[in-house]
């Protein structure tokens, strides 16, 4: 059974000032091919003795989880679902380098233990002593969407009232070199980013509700544009919406011809100018879209959206014609 799902809490670490504020007054621009996060003071959220051993992605994942839980007024969680493509890159590099440098001798376990892709979801459960459903998706550019869809199913199954969902990916210097060599990253056309965005989804509206999650879908190697359009129409139809109901499209694509043709009346903004390109960038887009729908003017300004009334918003990201992601959010009357 389909059900209403609300975004009731947010934690967002990104290259913009999105952690302590909704969005900075000035949009931060990338310098060079990489866009790094503005990180908070982690000591506010994590014990000092634990912090010392943690890599950046774990800190970002835990701080955003903590922030989102406080924001949502600490609902008891029924599921913790993480999405990450690159996983714990720094710890993976560290362990791999030590193996190769020391010829498989004199190793210590910390980096290995923290290198697994489910580290952050596991650590959130550990910190909150939470035995609930716990999952980690690692499906490249639709890792966050996989997590969202899983969460939606749990709500439909009546298995959950409150779910933590995040999308997290970290950059490292070495990963940067690899991405440049793979011609994925360059200063002019493809600034690579990173980020950690955490949402608390709820089956009930609260005084803090940001927006309604009206739908999410992912497509793998769609045959043609018609099948993408069909998927878009279907997801809107399931939310009782028509194409013309969409007021704003947050796109992650350089070629926006498909979405421009489908939504001629909508305001457009490419959200990646704020966060750069990375696999779970749609989690960042969802977090700022939720802020926008709650009426945050800084976010609206940063995205360059002038439309006064924004009722329904669509996020669309197409990664190399392989993985397509569609997320629909709606404004909630308070």
């Amino acid at each position, binding site marked *: 059974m389909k059900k209403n799902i609300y975004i009731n809490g947010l934690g967002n670490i990104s290259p913009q000032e999105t952690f302590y504020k909704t969005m900075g007054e000035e949009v931060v621009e990338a310098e060079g091919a990489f866009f790094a996060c503005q990180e908070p003071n982690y000591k506010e959220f994590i014990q000092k003795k634990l912090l010392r051993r943690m890599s950046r992605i774990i800190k970002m994942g835990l701080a955003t989880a903590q922030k989102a839980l406080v924001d949502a007024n600490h609902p008891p969680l029924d599921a913790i679902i993480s999405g990450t*493509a690159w996983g714990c890159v720094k710890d993976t590099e560290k362990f791999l380098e030590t193996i190769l440098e020391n*010829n498989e001798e004199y190793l210590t376990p910390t980096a290995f233990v923290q290198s697994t892709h489910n580290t952050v979801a*596991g650590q959130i459960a550990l910190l909150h002593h939470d035995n609930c*459903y*716990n999952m980690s*998706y690692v499906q490249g550019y639709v890792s966050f969407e996989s997590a969202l869809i899983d969460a939606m199913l749990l709500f439909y199954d009546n298995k959950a009232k409150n779910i933590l969902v995040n999308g997290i990916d970290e950059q490292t210097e070495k990963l940067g070199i*690899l991405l440049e060599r*793979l011609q994925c990253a360059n200063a002019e056309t493809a600034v690579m980013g990173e980020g950690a965005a955490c949402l608390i989804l709820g089956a009930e509206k609260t005084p803090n509700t940001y927006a309604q999650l009206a739908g999410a879908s992912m497509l793998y190697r769609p045959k043609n544009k018609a099948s993408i359009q069909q998927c878009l129409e279907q997801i809107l139809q399931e939310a009782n919406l028509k194409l013309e109901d969409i007021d704003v499209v947050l796109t992650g694509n350089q070629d926006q011809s498909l979405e421009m043709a489908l939504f001629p009346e909508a305001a457009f903004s490419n959200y990646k100018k704020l966060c750069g390109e990375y696999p779970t960038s749609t989690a960042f887009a969802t977090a700022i879209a939720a802020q926008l729908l709650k009426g945050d003017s800084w976010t609206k300004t940063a995205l360059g959206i002038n439309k006064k009334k924004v009722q329904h918003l669509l996020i669309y990201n197409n990664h190399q014609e392989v993985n397509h992601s569609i997320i629909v959010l709606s404004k909630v009357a308070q």
Partner: protein
Amino acid sequence: MAKRIFITGIGVISAIGKNTSETLSSIKTASSGVGEIQYLQTVHKGKLPLCEVKYDNQQLCELANIDPKTRITRTSLLGIIAAQEAWRSAGSPVLGDGRTGVFSGNTVGGMDKTEHFYADFMQDAQSGDIKTMLTHECAESTERIADSLGATGMVSTISTACSSAANTIMLGARMIKHGLLDRAIVGGVDALTKFTVNGFNVLQILDDQYSQPFDENRRGLNLGEGAGFIVLEAEGIAKEEHILAELVGYANSNDAYHQTASSPDGTGAFLAMQGALKVAEIEPSQIDYVNVHGTGTANNDLSEGFAMQRLFGENMPKFSSTKAFTGHTLGASGGVEAVLSVLALQHKIIYPNLRFKTPIEALGGTMIPETALLENQDLTYVLSNSFGFGGNTSSLVFKAYK
């Protein structure tokens, strides 16, 4: 009424065989896959035993019908071989209508290739075959598997350590229940790498002899590699002649005790087993056989044993760990053991827990796994456990199709 979920295909490759029939005959002859390292290039060769798939990558390419010059990881090759077998045994259904999902679990993706590349990369950041890195991510093997099958529905990858594959089976079932898919090819794959062998070795949970799951004198686990996939089909889609068993229960929980160790009382394991029985709407006494996670580490077997005692009380069902045959295949283990659970139901057999001698004292000395192959068993429900780092615990319940 929710749709029933049938298993219509199974495929497996591990140290004990390249397909289901070889796997079954290895088990029937009590031939374990553990042995001295032959394929992995590591300093641990001759010291640590492993359960390697007994083919090099070139031979795996031939088995997978792939040009050996292709840039492809061992992970993808193992995955393609097992998923293809599962698909063929389901009657080779046409998958291009977008209604078939492919969900695979793994822990280190294409690390087997990455660690070779990285040795060059560390010498000089501009050297090494950079395209290798395109095969590094966990999702890559899943996409290769989906492409090899021509599947165009939802494709996703789960990485919850050693419970990864069990969680994909659960995801597939839930997607089908909701009518989002008609069919799902689910399971997992992991190839042995220096990264994993050294990781487990430094955690001091590897046995330098052949492992003895659930034994008082167990010393640790033997790592293995392989892949196991099953085909799930919705009631109404599954053809009667292909139905092998039914998936009736599944649950996931988190132990929330320690990043790598299980809680002493097995909270997560208990919650997962209990949850799976609840979904199956059966009582603990209805379980006929438990394919335990049973890695052979001091910690896992004790914790899992406590959780089983808490769930089953005096009426402990027959149980065994098949990891003494296959080794611990990590992200693949839930898939490999799902295939074994279905084979147990199909062939009415219970597997021996090889090398077991002495029951664990801390469990009261009463938890004795089956030590010989049992045939002609009247099996209705089989429970399969998969637990992993990060506290992830999952259990599945399979039912005989009679």
